[in-house]
């Protein structure tokens, strides 16, 4: 690990000031990703700003329903929060599908959003990677790319965002609250992460010096009709090859609201609002599910090693929609898929 300077500010303004005045500075909270990246010399901050002293550790119920989750709340505390389990079980389920209990105990809400891709080449400084070293090339294109993107990739980068929690937050239309040198602003979840284009070194739309302070979920989805279905190479403690977050509103047998996000397929959680709109008003059948999956995956493109993900995603989407309509969400400790 490269040597670095260390400070521990006591409030957000101090942290922003430090971040905005040091080009080599990075934040540390739970540390589960940044410490690992520093061990591999993928990250080498000259200054580490320890934000664990900031007052961003609460989950607050909002007056009109929903919650504000402080950026420093652990993934575990979000997943097991009574109100979130009751009103947003999709979010709890997605979090519990990810990582291990030890990692969820350490990892924070903000850190989950800001974690980097697990592309093997990004993690290996002996290989070219446009995300790690802009302009050096992409080793995954034409290389080993079993885990890589099938949607929204670019000639510069085919990495995927690794989070489970973010897939649920995308489906729940969360809002990210940030503070920077120019004050506070909000970013719709769909606009927070970005596609790689020709600047894959940028994972998100945060401006220089901005800090994530919280996440708001405000919608009132029907908590019955949801599921988080995650498919991976082993049954626990592995990143998604494909994951599907579904949140439906149902009026008797008819779909009145549909939000579907995919993980493991792109540089950001993937949604297709036009395809979702076509589900509204349907008393859905298997063929509606298949049509939805086909529409959503129409732009999908394999890279060789990950070609299998396209038919796998189609099956996963159909299965997840069936689970959500039936009100029988995937249980993360029971590995059989209903």
């Amino acid at each position, binding site marked *: *690990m*490269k*040597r*670095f*300077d*260390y400070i521990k500010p006591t409030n957000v303004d101090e942290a922003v000031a430090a971040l905005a*005045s*040091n*080009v*080599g*500075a990075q934040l*540390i909270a739970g*540390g*589960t990703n940044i*410490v*690992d990246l*520093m*061990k591999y010399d993928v990250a080498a901050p*000259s*200054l*580490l700003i*320890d934000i*664990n002293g900031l007052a961003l550790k609460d989950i607050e119920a909002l007056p009109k329903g929903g919650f504000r989750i402080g950026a420093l709340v652990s993934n*575990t505390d979000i997943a*097991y929060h009574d109100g979130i389990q009751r009103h947003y079980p999709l979010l709890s389920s997605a979090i519990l599908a990810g*990582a*291990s*209990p*030890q*990692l969820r*105990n*350490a990892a924070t809400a903000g850190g989950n959003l800001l974690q980097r891709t697990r592309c093997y080449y990004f993690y290996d400084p002996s290989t070219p990677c446009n995300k790690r070293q802009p302009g050096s090339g992409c080793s995954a294109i034409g290389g080993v790319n079993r885990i890589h993107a099938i949607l929204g990739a670019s000639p510069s980068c085919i990495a995927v965002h690794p989070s489970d929690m973010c897939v649920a937050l995308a489906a729940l239309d969360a809002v990210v609250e940030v503070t920077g040198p120019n004050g506070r602003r909000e970013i719709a979840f769909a606009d927070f992460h970005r596609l790689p284009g020709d600047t894959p070194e940028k994972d998100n739309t945060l401006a220089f010096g901005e800090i994530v302070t919280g996440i708001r979920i405000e919608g009132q989805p029907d908590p019955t009709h949801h599921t988080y279905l995650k498919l991976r190479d082993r049954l*626990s*403690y592995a990143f998604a090859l494909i994951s599907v977050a579904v949140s439906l509103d149902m009026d008797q047998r008819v779909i009145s609201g549909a939000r579907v996000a995919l993980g493991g397929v792109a540089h950001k959680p993937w949604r297709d609002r036009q395809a979702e709109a076509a589900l509204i008003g349907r008393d859905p059948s298997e063929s509606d599910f298949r049509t939805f999956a086909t529409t959503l995956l129409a732009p999908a493109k394999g890279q060789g090693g990950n070609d299998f993900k396209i038919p796998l995603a189609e099956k996963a989407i159909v299965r997840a929609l069936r689970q959500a309509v039936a009100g029988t969400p995937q249980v*993360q*400790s*029971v*590995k059989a898929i209903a």
Partner: protein
Amino acid sequence: MQSTAPRPSGFTVPIDLTINGQSNHLDVAPWTTLVDLLREDLQLTGTKKGCDHGQCGACTVLIDGVRLNSCLILAVTRNGADITTIEGVGTLDNLHPVQRAFVEHDALQCGYCTPGQICSAIGLLREGKATSRAEVRELMSGNLCRCGAYTNIADAVEDVLFESHREAAE
């Protein structure tokens, strides 16, 4: 705009840690991970370094009662914490119930992952979220065992879990 030059390697930060009930005032370099501090500086070698990347759970310790991977924690970020390592879990004469269950169920072969498995199991029991074997297996999935003693590990954890349920019910 400035770019801070990294401090020389002699840079340390003073922190206080309670480790297995003992107060420690320490000057640590900020790049020191907790597992290295425990093993190299404090000679508490019961905590094992397996992968050093948060993938195996061998380095699991309890911090303020919560199970965490000590290899992914910079010690400097945990000033004031109360840490329990395997050395603080039980003694040869007075084993912790989880240790006793691991012995009874032969829940190990080489033993390298065992300190982490036991700290993780204690954390699992405190969390109180596991109520079935499937949940025990899922919630112990952060601890790998290269010998493959998983069946007996799950038996041992289940034994203590249901024993503690009985005690709670009584």
